[in-house]
Structure formats: structure tokens, C-alpha cells
């Protein structure tokens, strides 16, 4: 990992998403897909061609897209409702709350190109609020996979789970981090690297960067624990508390607003149960400037170097306190 992501083969998780969805549809006639004129960006052309009778394009209409998905579930289907996360969540928030969370409809929301993947298109197309919005909705499982293996594992779990799920997916290239036989479990974090001086809790595209940061910290003599918190809701409280109890502080890293998402969730848990210093890395309450996704991640310190610096700063504050 010390070479950085550029030297390693990387993957667009949408390919694992599309192939897994087709595979599940081939096995289970209840699996169907709903899109909002987003066949290209969801990479579901193959699904449409193979299962045209189970493919619904509702046009550019996200409220109806989520409501129709709730109805498909009421009628016995297992709909995967797929669109750009910025529109899927923001435009249809009441349907997500009422038709899915409250009504417990068996719908799988697939928010594509989340975070700042649509960098240059601007804050209208960024989806950095979706974690804060979705994780407060009861009954809705929120998952942020870190790599193609976890994307596939999360989809397989979501199909068999009876209840609403929000899968927050990205198009940002990421290396393969997990073993092929990885099984997703809700409410269970995975510790990808052990360490007892500081803990880095990350999800999605930030997990690979967190591992790189841990390698850099190791070179400086600092042992960092890296926790992949793919299950945002329910969150793994025990893993967070162990990190609080067994290290000197926590850095969270997410491609999202620092308010209300992973950083917020971790801060809530430690503030209640075992207060330690928490540094939240993410978008600090601003609309992002213009730039590519990679530029914006660097701009907000969402890189291995940025996490490393945040970890060292946190440990310095702890030492001088």
C-alpha cells in the first residue's frame, strides 16, 4: 500500500455492482431494477438487455422512482432502485423516510456516484449529505462498501435481507482490499490493520487511503488501527468503543460532510460512552469548489497524507494536554 493507489490495480465498483445484480436476477425472479434515465451511469445496460421485463425506467422522476419501488416490493418483487445518489436521496427523501423506512418496504436503494465523484459538475451533483440524511431513518440499513468485493458482498446480503437498504456506491477507482470470500454483516466493522496508538475509522473510497495513511504512520513509528465501517447504520458501537478505549484518539475519514455522517456517528458514541479526542475528516460544512473528484479529495485533506497529518496533530494535542 505504501506505493499509493496509483501503482496498484484499481476498480470501478459499478462493474461489480452490475454483474452481481445480473447474477442475482438470474437466480431469483423477484429481483428487478428501477432507474431514472440512468442506464449508463448505473452500468445496467446488460441487465436491461437480459431482463427487459424486470427493468423499469421511470424517466427523470425520483419521487415516483422510490414510490414505485415501494409498490413493486408491496407486490412481492425485490426492487433495486438505482440512480445518482445526489438525486436519489435528496429529491425523494420523504419517500425514503415514509415508503421505505417507516413502511419497511423491501427496497434496495443504490445511490451511485456518491460523495464528490461528479467533482467538476459542482455541488448540485455532489452527494455529501446522504449519509447524514439516511442514517437517522429507522429500519433503513446504510452500507458504504470500500471495494468491489465488499460491493458484491453487500448486494448479496441486501437481496436476502427483508427490509429497506441504502447502498452508497461510488465510481471512484479503488484497489481491491478484501478477500474474495468476504461476507457483509450489518453492524459489524472490519479491522483491516491492528494498532494501539490511534484509530482511523473510514468507509467507502476512504478505506484504501486510510490503509495508506497507516503505512505512512508506521514509517514514523506510530501504529494506527484501521477500521472499515461499511455498515453505517446499524453502526458497530463496540468497534468504536474499543478504538476509544484501546488507542489515544480517533480520526474518521469519509467522502461526505463531517456533520451527521460517519464522523458524527463516531463522535456521538464516544461522547456518550468513553470520551476521547475525535478528528473528523470530510467536507467541513461548505459547498465544494470546482475541481475533479481527486482534486477535491486532496483539497479537503482526504488523502493518505491528509489522514497522516490529522493523526499526528491529534496525538500531539493529546501529548501536550
Amino acid at each position: 500500500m505504501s506505493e499509493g493507489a496509483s501503482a496498484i490495480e484499481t476498480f470501478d465498483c459499478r462493474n461489480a455492482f452490475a454483474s452481481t445484480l445480473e447474477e442475482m436476477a438470474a437466480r431469483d425472479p423477484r429481483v428487478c431494477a428501477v432507474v431514472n434515465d440512468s442506464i449508463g451511469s448505473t452500468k445496467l445496460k446488460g441487465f436491461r438487455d437480459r431482463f427487459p421485463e424486470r427493468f423499469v425506467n421511470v424517466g427523470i422522476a425520483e419521487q415516483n422512482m422510490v414510490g414505485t419501488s415501494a409498490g413493486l416490493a408491496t407486490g412481492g418483487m425485490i426492487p433495486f432502485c438505482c440512480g445518482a445518489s445526489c438525486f436519489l436521496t435528496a429529491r425523494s427523501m420523504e419517500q425514503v423516510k415514509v415508503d421505505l423506512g417507516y413502511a419497511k418496504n423491501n427496497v434496495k436503494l443504490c445511490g451511485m456516484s456518491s460523495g464528490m465523484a461528479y467533482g467538476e459538475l459542482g455541488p448540485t451533483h455532489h452527494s455529501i449529505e446522504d449519509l447524514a440524511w439516511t442514517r437517522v431513518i429507522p429500519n433503513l440499513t446504510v452500507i458504504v462498501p470500500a471495494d468491489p468485493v465488499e460491493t458484491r458482498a453487500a448486494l448479496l446480503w441486501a437481496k436476502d435481507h427483508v427490509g429497506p437498504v441504502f447502498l452508497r456506491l461510488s465510481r471512484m477507482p479503488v484497489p481491491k482490499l478484501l478477500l474474495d470470500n468476504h461476507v457483509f454483516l450489518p453492524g459489524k466493522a472490519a479491522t483491516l490493520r491492528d494498532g494501539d496508538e490511534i484509530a482511523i475509522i473510514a468507509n467507502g473510497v476512504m478505506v484504501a487511503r486510510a490503509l495508506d495513511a497507516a503505512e505512512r504512520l508506521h514509517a514514523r513509528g506510530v501504529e494506527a488501527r484501521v477500521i472499515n465501517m461499511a455498515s453505517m447504520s446499524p453502526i458497530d458501537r463496540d468497534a468504536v468503543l474499543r478504538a476509544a478505549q484501546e488507542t489515544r484518539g480517533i480520526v474518521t475519514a469519509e467522502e461526505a460532510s463531517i456533520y451527521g455522517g460517519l464522523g458524527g456517528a463516531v463522535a456521538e458514541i464516544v461522547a456518550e460512552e468513553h470520551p476521547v479526542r475525535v478528528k473528523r475528516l470530510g467536507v467541513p460544512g461548505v459547498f465544494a469548489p470546482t475541481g475533479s473528484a481527486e482534486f477535491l479529495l486532496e483539497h479537503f485533506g482526504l488523502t493518505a497524507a491528509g489522514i497522516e497529518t490529522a493523526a499526528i496533530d491529534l496525538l500531539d494535542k493529546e501529548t501536550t494536554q
Partner: protein
Amino acid sequence: MTDFTGKQELSGLKERLRKSAGNVRARALQMVYHAKLGHPGGDLSSADILTTLYLAVLRIEPGNPSWPERDRFILSKGHCSAALYATLAEAGILDEQALQTFMEPLSLLNGHPDRNKVKGVEANTGPLGHGLPIATGCALAAKMQKASWRTFVLTGDGEVQEGSNWEAALCAAHYGLDNLTLIIDRNRIQQGDFTETILKLDPLAEKWRAFGWYVVEVNGHDYDDLLRVLSAVPHEKGKPTCVIANTIKGRGVSFMENKPQWHHRVPLESELAAALAELEKDEP
């Protein structure tokens, strides 16, 4: 579904519907009075539609509300839950005793229906504009499964001001969902005033026709009209049906009829007594 070929049978059915709708109206008003909350105007305008659906149109098994082959009915105007619960009791799906708990602490009977609490309820509604998209999805699911069950959804008329309905209207027509029937309770009054004062809906039938629906207008208090139209869907192959049911808000209680304030006014004790007396005397 009932076969209405015999005149005597039809007359018996209509009498049963009249009695049941009267019970639904009386119970809904009592429930609202006891809860000191509710929407009596819409309960009364929709009572004949609801009883016709549940007692004569929907293919359901009252003892088995989750029967997979059942017709789906979605009350999109979830604020008229008192009328829905009272109708479910008339249909033998909900225990009549439960009606007394309407909106009490920890009651299963919320002010707006919850499908996870009440058997026979298909959707959690209350915020407007949710029912038609859900019904569209139900109808798509039946088509995907090549199943013969049908989907019915009842919306308010003010409710169709919500844009989500028009998203669903395009979708249902595009996919040719002739197994979907929308009924609009066209009582011409919404929360604040008459619909045409707040935000014009007319010409409403033309709008739905333009969206590609088969549209028919009925008197929403006339059982002949309701039975004729609702038992004969689909009316046009490849098109969803929109039934504009012209109704009177507060129907059956003279001092509540066509008065916007009865959208969610709670009757006084004397008003409840007067209303129940009027309903008791109601003639077909």
C-alpha cells in the same frame, strides 16, 4: 368480485352498501369525536367509495389479509384513516372493538394508517402524493409476475396538486398499466378552502386524458355508478383507469356538507348527536 346480473341481487347489495356506508360514517364521526382529532369531511365524502370497494369490488380474503393474490387497495388520502378503519371493520378484516382506540396512546390505529400495525393496510400514507406511485409499482409487480390481481388507489382531489402524482401518471400510462385504477375523491375542498380557490384543478378529466389515462366521471355517492365503473376495469386495454368520483365533502350530515372547515373540525357533543341522528334517518 360480485356478479350484478340479477336485479334482486343488485338491489340487496346496494342496500347492504347503504347500511355499511352509514355505519362507516357514524363510526368515523364517533372516532373523531373521541380522539378530538381527525378529518370528518373527507371521511364522509369517501365512505361510499370505500364500502363499495371493500364489500363488492376488491378480491380479498378478509381472514387472510396477506393472501398474495389479493387485489391491492391503497388509501393515499391517509388522513381519512377513520373511514378506512371503520370500513375494514365492516369488511371483517379489523376487530370492531379496536375502533374505540383510534389515536389513543400506543393504539395500533394511528391518525394515519401504518401497514405494519393494521392488517389489510397496504401502505403507510399521510404525506400526500405517495399512494399513486406505490400503486403504480404494485401494478408493475403484477405485470412482471403475470398475475391477475389488480390495484386500486384512492386519492383526495387537493392531493393531486402534489407533483409526484404526475410523475406516476406518466409512468403508469407509459407502461400501459390497465390493472391500475385511480379513484379521485373529487369533493372540491382541501384543507384551507375550495380546490379551485387554492389551486385550480379543472379541467381535471382532460388532464388525466392528456396523460394517457382512460377517464370516467361518476357520482361518488351513487352505488349503481360506482359498481358499474369499478367492477368493469380495465375499461380500455393498455390504459390505466382514472375514476373521478364527484362527491360532497361532509356527505350525510347537512351542517357539514360542502363546508371547508369540516376538513378537520372536531364535532361538539351536540353536533355529534345531531349528525348521528341525521345519518340514522338517511334514506337511499
